[in-house]
């Protein structure tokens, strides 16, 4: 294992310390894994979080127009309720707090337990669960679909709505609307190593990729030989579009596109993929309103990408375009 670290057990706190030193608008609540805005918004608070290792998610999305606080657990492991309650307290200005939870068993249990405890202290808390990964079948019986890069759009849109002074129910409504209209699909080319474990979580051969792999290395839908960028674009988009068309329309609609890197895929490759995704979308008759290319929801040093489409209407466009000073998603 080659990593720029001091001690595998200290990576989360040391990372957050470094992050807060790089961003004068946030504070790091030491020992609690919480990054929050220095000044309370006076509005509905938005809190998100989850395991670490997905930077800039989630602490990089704390800022005006986006999250009020982000709560980090250990690498790939949900934060505990005590930490989440700290995040809720930091974010609460008396108008309630919305939790944006990615759909994993651990996150769901810890965030809902924190909600139960915070409500005993008379803080109004509600939550939404993001499940955008079309690689997994949705189901009410099982945990169902995972939350991946599409979560960043939920942060952006609910954050913008909260910034406008909207009530908690309204903020939740636009968050739910975003969740309904966002789909993602990923692809991994190499494994990653959790610092405390020291060995890669899985192995992919030099010429192998895995379509649909999750952001913690969860198994995907197919392992294949390496594909070209054009083939990858088509493969991922076909599945996303097919999933949209099961419940709604997507052709002739306008979308925001996110080409997300998983950690060690160079921007050069992400831009090539963006070119091919856009070409593919044009052929499919889907209009691109805005594109985002970069590392938004990573998986440590995993190589690979995910593609996210958010179907837009005028309300979502306005909220997407609203300013954000979160370093992970700057909008002027």
């Amino acid at each position: 294992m080659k990593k720029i670290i001091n001690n595998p057990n200290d990576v989360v706190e040391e990372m957050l310390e470094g992050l807060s030193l790089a961003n004068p608008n946030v504070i790091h609540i030491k020992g609690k894994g919480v990054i929050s805005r220095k000044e309370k918004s006076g509005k509905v608070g938005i809190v998100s979080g989850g395991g670490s290792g997905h930077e800039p998610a989630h602490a990089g999305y704390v800022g005006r127009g986006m999250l009020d606080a982000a709560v980090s657990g250990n690498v790939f492991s949900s934060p505990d309720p005590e930490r989440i309650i700290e995040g809720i307290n930091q974010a609460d200005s008396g108008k309630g707090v919305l939790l944006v939870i990615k759909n994993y068993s651990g996150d769901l249990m810890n965030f809902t337990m924190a909600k139960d405890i915070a409500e005993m202290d008379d803080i109004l808390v509600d939550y939404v669960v993001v499940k955008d990964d079309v690689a997994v079948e949705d189901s009410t019986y099982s945990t169902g679909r995972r939350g991946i890069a599409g979560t960043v759009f939920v942060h952006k849109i609910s954050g913008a709505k909260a910034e406008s002074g909207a009530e908690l129910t309204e903020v939740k409504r636009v968050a739910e609307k975003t969740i309904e209209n966002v789909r993602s699909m990923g692809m991994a080319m190499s494994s990653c190593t959790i610092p405390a474990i020291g060995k890669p979580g899985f192995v992919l051969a030099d010429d192998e990729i895995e379509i649909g792999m999750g952001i913690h290395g969860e198994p995907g839908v197919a392992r294949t030989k390496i594909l070209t960028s054009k083939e990858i674009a088509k493969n991922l988009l076909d599945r996303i579009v097919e999933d949209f068309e099961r419940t709604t329309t997507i052709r002739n609609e306008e979308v925001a596109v996110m080409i997300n890197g998983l950690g060690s895929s160079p921007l050069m490759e992400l831009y090539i993929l963006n070119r091919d995704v856009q070409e593919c979308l044009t052929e499919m008759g889907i209009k691109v309103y805005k594109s985002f290319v970069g590392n938004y929801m990573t998986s440590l040093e995993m190589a690979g990408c995910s593609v996210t489409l958010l179907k837009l209407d005028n309300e979502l466009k306005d909220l997407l375009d609203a300013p954000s000073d979160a370093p992970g998603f700057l909008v002027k």
Partner: protein
Amino acid sequence: MNLTNRDYVAYIRKISQRFEGCGEYITALDAATGDGDHWTNINSGFLKLVEMSEELETLSVSDMFKKIGMTLMSVMGGSSGVLYGSAYLEAAKVTKGTDTITLPILKNILEAMLAAIMKRGNVQPGQKTMVDALCPAVEAFSAAIDRNLPEAEIIENMRKAAIKGAESTKDIPAVRGRAFYQANKGVGHLDPGAVTMSYQLDTLGEYILSAL
């Protein structure tokens, strides 16, 4: 049987020792179907409890369980942390005002823990989780008490049911957690959470038998 705090803390030391010695095995099980961090998390949780053992011995039974729950919740983290946290917090509720743990009280504790885990995890038996070790153990315990079996036999039945329950997870497809995402839902692999749960029940039983 009449366990004091001191006994329960002695059990915590024993199970922590057992966890210390099975790192590679549990991590390998977890790497097959999970995140690979279950052992690290549970081991650090119980090591923390051992570190606090003197403090735990001075508390009431209920406060001891509460402290254990809060500690496991924050030190273990992840799914197991909140589940063990919920279990011990519920155990604290049903032991309010008790000084020692008798067999019927232990039955209440285990039942409360099972209910708490099933509620928080939204999980039923047969879904490849720790519940598949705990649920049959609780059932065997209750059945043995109802039949007025000797104490040693009640405990033995509980231990056996826990171990057998953990082994049963090998053939069960997962619906929760990471194993669910695998094409075969983890069939053919033991659930590491069920295995570590069975270790706890087994070691608790072993300690009780040695103390009877």
